[in-house]
């Protein structure tokens, strides 16, 4: 174990963290505004990845174009699920929305499995050898993944913290009643939020599919890391979700020399437990959101 191995592990962790950050952010946005953990986020990822595979298969288009189309498709699916399901459940206890989300996830997964089959799929993407800087290996694909993730995170942050859309969202997140009283029209705002969340999930699915393989279970399986990242960062906090994802993934990669790869997941949860013991609201969370 030299410092070069260490740097390589750190790079792995950062890239995995950026990939996990997208669904974590999508989840935390819904959690902050609609106040329920959207368990269908994982299957929105899968939907996005399969939409991109379908576009590539049908049109033979490059991956970036397929990803853009799949973002539109998944955003519509996401907004549709809000209009048809979650809007109707607003005001009910959190559990009913969460159960509905689990059900929606099952539905999406089954539909994908039924129409696309359970065989693994991959994107049509050229394989490139890693750049080698004296033992520090950087994959060009990973660099592209990191860049796309970072740019989309930046776009979301600008939207949330620099536009009136973001201000209204944050107002609703703080107090839905107060926001309504001050004339914020919730319906259009919610639709935009769910469109954004869908697009973000889709992108997360495509990035995950670029690193791994596309299968009907891919999103569901990445739900727990995303959920952990959201909790660690502080529920409802966008910055926290990204920080949480990075912290968990880096911690679990750096644990490899200590505990071996089979148990690295455990360490990321030790980090989660420790942080929550010290700061029950999470890294960036505020206490009133964790009632």
């Amino acid at each position, binding site marked *: 174990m030299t410092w070069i*191995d260490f740097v*390589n*592990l750190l790079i*792995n962790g950062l*890239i*995995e963290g950026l*990939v*996990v950050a997208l669904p974590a952010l999508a989840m935390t946005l819904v959690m902050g505004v609609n106040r329920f953990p959207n368990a269908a986020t994982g299957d929105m990822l899968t939907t996005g990845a399969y939409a991109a595979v379908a576009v590539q298969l049908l049109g033979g288009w490059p991956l970036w174009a397929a990803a853009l189309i799949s973002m539109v498709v998944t955003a519509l699916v996401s907004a549709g699920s809000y209009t048809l399901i979650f809007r109707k459940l607003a005001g009910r206890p959190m559990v009913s929305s969460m159960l509905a989300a689990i059900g929606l996830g099952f539905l999406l997964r089954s539909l994908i499995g039924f129409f696309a089959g*359970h*065989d*693994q*799929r*991959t994107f049509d993407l050229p*394989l*490139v*050898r*890693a750049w*080698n800087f004296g033992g520090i*290996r950087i*994959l060009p*694909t990973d660099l592209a993944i990191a860049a796309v993730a970072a740019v989309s995170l930046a776009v979301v942050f600008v939207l949330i913290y620099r536009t009136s859309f973001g201000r209204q969202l944050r107002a609703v997140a703080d107090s839905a009643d107060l926001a309504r009283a001050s004339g914020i029209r919730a319906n259009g705002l919610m639709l935009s939020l769910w469109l954004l969340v869908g697009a973000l999930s889709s992108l997360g699915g495509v990035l*995950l599919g670029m*690193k*791994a*393989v596309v*299968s009907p*279970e*891919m999103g569901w*399986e*990445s739900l727990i890391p995303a959920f952990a990242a959201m909790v660690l960062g502080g529920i409802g906090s966008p910055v926290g979700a990204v920080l949480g994802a990075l912290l968990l993934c880096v911690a679990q*990669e750096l644990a*490899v020399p200590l505990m*071996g*790869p*089979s148990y*690295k*997941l455990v360490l990321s949860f030790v980090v989660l437990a420790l942080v929550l013991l010290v700061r029950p609201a999470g890294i960036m969370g505020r206490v009133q959101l964790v009632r």
Partner: protein
Amino acid sequence: MQRRNFVKLGGAAAALQCLPSIGFSQQGDVFRIGSLTPITGAGSPYGPGMQQAIRLAVDEVNAAGGAGGRKLELFTEDDQTKPDAAVLAAKKLIEVNKVQAVLGTWASGVTLAVMPLTDAAGLIQMNVSGAPAISTLDTKDLVWRFQATNDRFGAAFAEICTKRGFKRPATMAFNNASGLGNVEGFTKAWEKRGGKVAAHVTYEPSRPSYRSELQKILAAKPDVIVMGSYLPDTTIILREWFQAGADNKWVIPGWAANPDLVKALGAEVCEGIISVETVSNEKSTSYAQFDAAFTKATGKPVSTNIYAAMAYDMVISLALAMEAAGPKATVEQINAKLREVSNAPGTAVYSFADGKAQLGKKAKVNYEGASSKLDFDKFGDATPDFGVFVIEKGQLVRRDVVSITM
């Protein structure tokens, strides 16, 4: 009066007992076989062919006049490659169809879930699963395996690595019974030959990346990495390995290193990968006959589905055991004859009709199956030969066949 009553009651009781015994004697004319294969789910590329093979074998036995004076009757169910669905289907076969043998389970998880049911009912169970645990959990010796165990896959990997002159193998395994079984079998056999394993990594399923696992294993500078893996994780690992630019060789089980892997990664990445899969007993007459029948029935040669030959052998060896056990034999008595008709010594026979004729002459027979020589060890496990395939320009080319003895 008391005595007269006793006689009356006794007579009535005897008459009552006659009724089910009439029923039994009618049932005695057929032997009911349940086919439980994966028609849907992950095993669906193989299950339909296996079911077809079982049907062909049943027809062959019935055409030869049945076994032990009985015709075979076939009931088919889909195990969906899922343990829960398989248990429901097995219950239906056992309780409704009253089958006396359940044939054809494919996934280890399915076989392990169905075994307790068939064991409790005292039925014969025949499968093509790999998990080593099946051998030891089969306490009543009613379970018969026609595929090599993961342990033996490992032993075959060691034989191949020796033959190809590798010196510094490392192993990577998916963290489950099958993956670990493969590499533990390899390590055992390799160390018995006096070799050392440079490094070992057990990895978790469904990770987005296996770079740190690869980094760990490549740090040991292996000349070959032996895998206990499945297709999705193998795809991710090989992609990252190729991108990282290492130059070791790979020995991978055939269910992970197959045309789908080449499709996912392209020919360049897969060049030179050694894929190991059991092969049928291709030089035997039984294989030739079955291949002809299977091709006629399905339009595909039996080489496209190695499990079909195994499923075919299940019925033939079972029928030979019935013939050897004689008319009215119980399931237990038939089960006790399975080793006798399949293993040496004895006159080698290649079809049910041959075997029936030989058994009629009171000779001892040794069925040489379409899938393997079909010699069961003390666990009831057969050991087929292993084909060594090398991926060259995107095609799996068979370069060698190795036999192992346990």
